[in-house]
């Protein structure tokens, strides 16, 4: 089964709204709608290789779905972002980081944001600026 079909099937089975792009070279950009109580926010995963993507379990939603996805494609994720309803970088309702960046599977940047404003950034890439929210 092609990776595209696997994804389509996984998303179809899952109630979590997921949108995004998977390019033919395997690089991808996925938006996952997350909810916590009445709060709705978006988790965005960017990666470089979706080729090894296995089927996801039924029923996972939001953060659970995100965790499952990241575990499935461990080592190929480049960036995980959380954005509030206004599209601004913002920590999740349970303190999940607004921004995490990876290189070769290693976390190289972790940043806390509130409504687009940086709260704290820890980075191994001292010369890399935090992307504009």
């Amino acid at each position, binding site marked *: 089964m092609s990776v595209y079909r696997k994804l389509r099937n996984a998303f179809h089975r899952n109630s979590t709204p997921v949108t995004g792009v998977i390019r033919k070279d395997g690089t991808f950009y996925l938006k996952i709608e997350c909810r916590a109580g009445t709060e709705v926010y978006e988790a965005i995963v960017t990666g470089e290789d979706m080729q090894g993507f296995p089927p996801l379990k039924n029923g996972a939603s939001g953060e659970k779905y995100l965790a499952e996805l990241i*575990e499935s494609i461990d080592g190929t994720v480049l960036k995980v972002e959380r954005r509030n309803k206004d599209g601004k970088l913002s920590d999740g309702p349970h*303190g*999940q*980081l607004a921004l*995490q960046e*990876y*290189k070769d*599977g*290693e*976390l*190289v*940047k*972790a*940043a*806390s944001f509130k409504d687009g404003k940086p709260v*704290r*950034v*820890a*980075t*191994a890439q*001292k010369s890399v600026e935090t992307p504009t929210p």
Partner: protein
Amino acid sequence: MKLNFTFGTGSDTYQLSVDGPELKISADCISSEEDLSLVLKGTKGVVVVVRENSAGKINDAPGGEPGMQMFRDGLLVIKGHYKDGLYHDSPKGGAAIQEFDAKGQVVRVEYYQNGQKLYTRPKTGFLKPPSF
């Protein structure tokens, strides 16, 4: 993966280690306790943080950070305050041993002085011994 750091200056210098089977972070991300606290929020699996004084004994950091902490998926599960390798209640952080549930609520505390156990409290009831 295990990472070792040296924090503090002068007589306040201490060693900090971060260890976890699923830990994959660049050591360059962490140059302070604040960085560590931030980075740990995004870690998977079990991660153990240990702080040791210059004598190699587990000890709270000068800033009051506990001698030992265990995290699961970025959430603090248990912390232990130490003085020279022994459990010891912290003037800054409370009971020597504190265990937390998934919501961050304290579910168990144990009070110690110089390694000697005073007593244990469940979540309900007084969290500070009346004799203190």
